[in-house]
């Protein structure tokens, strides 16, 4: 039977891609094989469009990094202790069904962590929606937060941070990114390799249904068209089963009888069987009849593509099968042997005794690479040369400050944070609300700090500099709490890469991130690319979101943003320039998103951060906060609000710096609000200052 073009097109494959499949396997694929190729070679799973550039990102840094080809990467933060982390997007599913989309986003990224043998210890959720006065944006925001709360709280993994940004370009395509962090003894990191001929291949967790067939992978590999029928692609989350899966998987790994383990995210059984085989230089022979299902009459290709949640694939040691199966049964989970590892590198899928797919695992796992054209967009020249010296000074600085503090991009995220259990596991030393969250590692002096940051506006105005500013800000957030930045994960949210101006944004951001990571000595240990974040009416700002983990030598030596006592001296580190481009002020007070983002001198930035870090570590600083959105004025106000004290500041420090502050901050009429992105410390009075 010859294949109709409609068949592969419906699966999201271009004609050229189909031809390529025929060339590579030397024959027409069976329907099941075609489905398998369509998911493995999709952008979502195979990264064919982004891989060439991702190679630029550094894999090594000042802390021992652990990166290679697993689900998540990490860094060794203390002798023998590795922290694994990764961020992922669930943008399209959340736009379609915000509650389930966000919930399954949490579920998916958590699986990436425990599949490597790490216990998940924290989640962060950087979120971006349209302007809050849009009813749709409000609805999506509310439901996304509820979805994260529903799933994360039930798992008992604290949500300790994130971001909330509201801007028109995200109105048709929200960004729901989730970062997860786990802890594991370095020598116990599990692999996802299938090795050892004859070893049993076991599917565990939920049964397989038709939900989400072609969901994440197909959905994430296209723009949103108007009125598209997206129903079949929605996945439903079951956090209770996931919680049991975490416990059962970690318990099973502890026995030593597990050879390899991999979570089923997008593309379910296809992805796990093919990638575990390819990674282990082996093959697999599986029988679909054995797969527990929740609907009768499922076709082989449906089983292979289903994105039913809360499932894992596991390869156990021959002869110790029962031990492993027993652990999953104890936790009330399905666990069924569906096949065996083979030595010939072929993935064979059988159904009712019939061979429905027979492919070399490596071929399937190795999608072609596309080098897409990049082209500087028209707007770029224009914003670069915008003259901001003509922007009028506001009449009432107090009004400006009040307006900035009321901006949903700046105001506290307490409404969301209180819906998240951010304390469970009793490690949260600094809770959401500070520059970064601080977690203790029980039994160790060291602690970790973690933050997520993004800035679509800066990256839109200048993707190269913007990406660097994002990393600089994330690192600054970490030093403010007293942590040494140690490793990065990224979630790269962009528009349609097949449009050269969008791809240019992507390329410049990745280059900026690569250069800045190198300058800071930070490895990029893991990441995720989300393309096609656009509708016919809106394209999101190019938005790389970074998750950065830092290390505290002594978790007790940390700082928070609130001023601690009247009489303490306030010190502003770094230089202040007239950087107005892309600021929240320019947007709110003048309705403009233009100009160049703030100047960034990486060497100077590193020095400022080193000074701040030392002040916190040596106990000289009573508080520390970085100037970010809203600039110095907002930073001062936030430190006052957090600390419930006022502050008296002058443009130039007075001769005697130990004045008793009596008045609340009042911005001077002559000072121009800037976006100075620098740390602001308060030192204990009496400490020497310079």
């Amino acid at each position: 039977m010859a294949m109709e073009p409609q068949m592969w097109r419906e699966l999201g494959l271009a004609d050229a891609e189909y031809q390529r499949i025929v060339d590579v396997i030397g024959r027409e694929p069976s329907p099941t094989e075609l489905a398998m190729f369509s998911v493995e070679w999709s952008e979502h799973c195979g990264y064919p469009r982004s891989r060439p550039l991702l190679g630029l990102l550094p894999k090594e840094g000042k802390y021992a990094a652990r990166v290679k080809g697993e689900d998540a990467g990490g860094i060794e933060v203390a002798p023998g202790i590795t922290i694994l982390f990764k961020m992922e997007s669930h943008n399209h599913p959340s736009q379609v069904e915000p509650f389930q989309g966000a919930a399954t986003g949490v579920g998916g990224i958590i699986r990436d962590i425990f599949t490597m043998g790490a216990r998940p210890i924290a989640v962060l959720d950087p979120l971006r929606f349209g302007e809050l006065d849009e009813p749709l944006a409000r609805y999506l925001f509310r439901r996304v937060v509820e979805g994260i709360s529903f799933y994360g709280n039930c798992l008992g993994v604290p949500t300790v941070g994130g971001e909330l940004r509201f801007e028109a370009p995200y109105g048709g395509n929200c960004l729901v990114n989730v970062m997860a962090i786990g802890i594991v003894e370095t020598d116990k990191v599990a692999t996802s390799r299938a090795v050892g001929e004859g070893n049993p291949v076991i599917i565990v967790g939920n049964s397989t249904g038709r939900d989400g067939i072609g969901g994440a992978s197909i959905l994430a590999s296209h723009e949103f068209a108007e009125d598209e029928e997206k129903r079949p692609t929605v996945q439903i989350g079951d956090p209770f089963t996931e919680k049991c899966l975490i416990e059962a998987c970690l318990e099973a790994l502890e026995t030593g009888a597990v050879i390899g383990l991999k979570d089923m995210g997008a593309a379910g059984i296809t992805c796990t069987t093919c990638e575990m085989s390819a990674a282990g230089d082996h093959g697999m022979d599986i029988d679909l009849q054995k797969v527990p299902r929740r609907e009768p009459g499922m076709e082989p290709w449906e089983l292979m593509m289903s994105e039913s949640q809360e499932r894992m694939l596991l390869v156990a040691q021959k002869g110790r099968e029962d031990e492993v199966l027993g652990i999953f049964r104890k936790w009330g989970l399905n666990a069924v042997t569906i096949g065996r590892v083979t030595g010939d590198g072929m993935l064979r899928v059988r159904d009712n005794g019939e061979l429905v797919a027979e492919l070399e695992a490596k071929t399937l796992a190795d999608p072609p690479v596309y080098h897409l054209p990049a082209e500087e967009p028209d707007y770029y020249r224009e914003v670069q040369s915008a003259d901001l010296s003509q922007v009028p000074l506001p009449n009432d600085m107090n009004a400006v400050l009040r307006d900035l503090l009321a901006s949903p991009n700046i105001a506290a995220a307490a409404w969301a944070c209180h819906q998240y259990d951010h304390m469970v596991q009793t490690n949260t030393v600094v809770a959401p609300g500070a520059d970064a969250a601080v977690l203790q590692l029980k039994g160790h002096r060291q602690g970790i700090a973690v933050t997520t940051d993004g800035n679509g506006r800066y990256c839109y105005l200048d993707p190269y500099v913007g990406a660097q500013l994002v990393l600089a800000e994330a690192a600054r957030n970490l030093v403010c709490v007293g942590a040494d930045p140690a490793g990065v994960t990224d979630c790269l949210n962009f528009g349609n890469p097949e449009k050269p101006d969008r791809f240019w944004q992507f390329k410049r951001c990745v280059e900026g991130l690569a250069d800045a990571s190198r300058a800071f000595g930070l490895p990029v240990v893991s990441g995720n690319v989300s393309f096609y974040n656009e509708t016919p009416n809106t394209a999101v700002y190019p938005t790389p979101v970074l998750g950065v983990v830092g290390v505290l030598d002594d978790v007790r030596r940390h700082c928070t943003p609130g001023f601690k006592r009247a009489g303490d001296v306030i010190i502003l580190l770094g230089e202040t320039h007239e950087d107005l481009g892309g600021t929240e002020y320019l947007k709110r007070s003048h309705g403009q998103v233009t100009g160049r983002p703030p100047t960034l001198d990486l060497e100077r930035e590193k020095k400022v951060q080193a000074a701040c870090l030392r002040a916190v570590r040596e106990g000289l600083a009573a508080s520390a906060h970085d100037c970010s959105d809203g600039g110095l004025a907002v930073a001062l106000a936030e430190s006052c609000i957090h600390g419930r004290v006022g502050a008296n500041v002058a443009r130039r420090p007075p001769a005697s710096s130990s004045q008793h502050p009596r008045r609340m901050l009042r911005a001077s009429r002559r000072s121009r609000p800037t976006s100075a992105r620098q740390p602001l410390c308060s030192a204990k009075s009496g400490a020497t200052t310079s």
Partner: protein
Amino acid sequence: MAKARVIITLKKTIMDAQGQTAENALHNLGYRGVSNLRIGKVVEMELDGAPKEQLSAQLDKMCRELLANPIIEDFQFEIED
């Protein structure tokens, strides 16, 4: 014044983890004859202000807009006066 009752259930193709858990619990309690248990929502309300013949259309719209999530749920309703 009319009374309405809306029944909202997860679409049949969608897994109902909650229902499954309740079914298992019933089995453990010895009620082995129970199967296909699914849990949904019921919304009861009083309706006023529209001529009776329009109520049904109005309620249908309310369900689509707010009460149910048509992407994952089915709904049905009855109105009595």
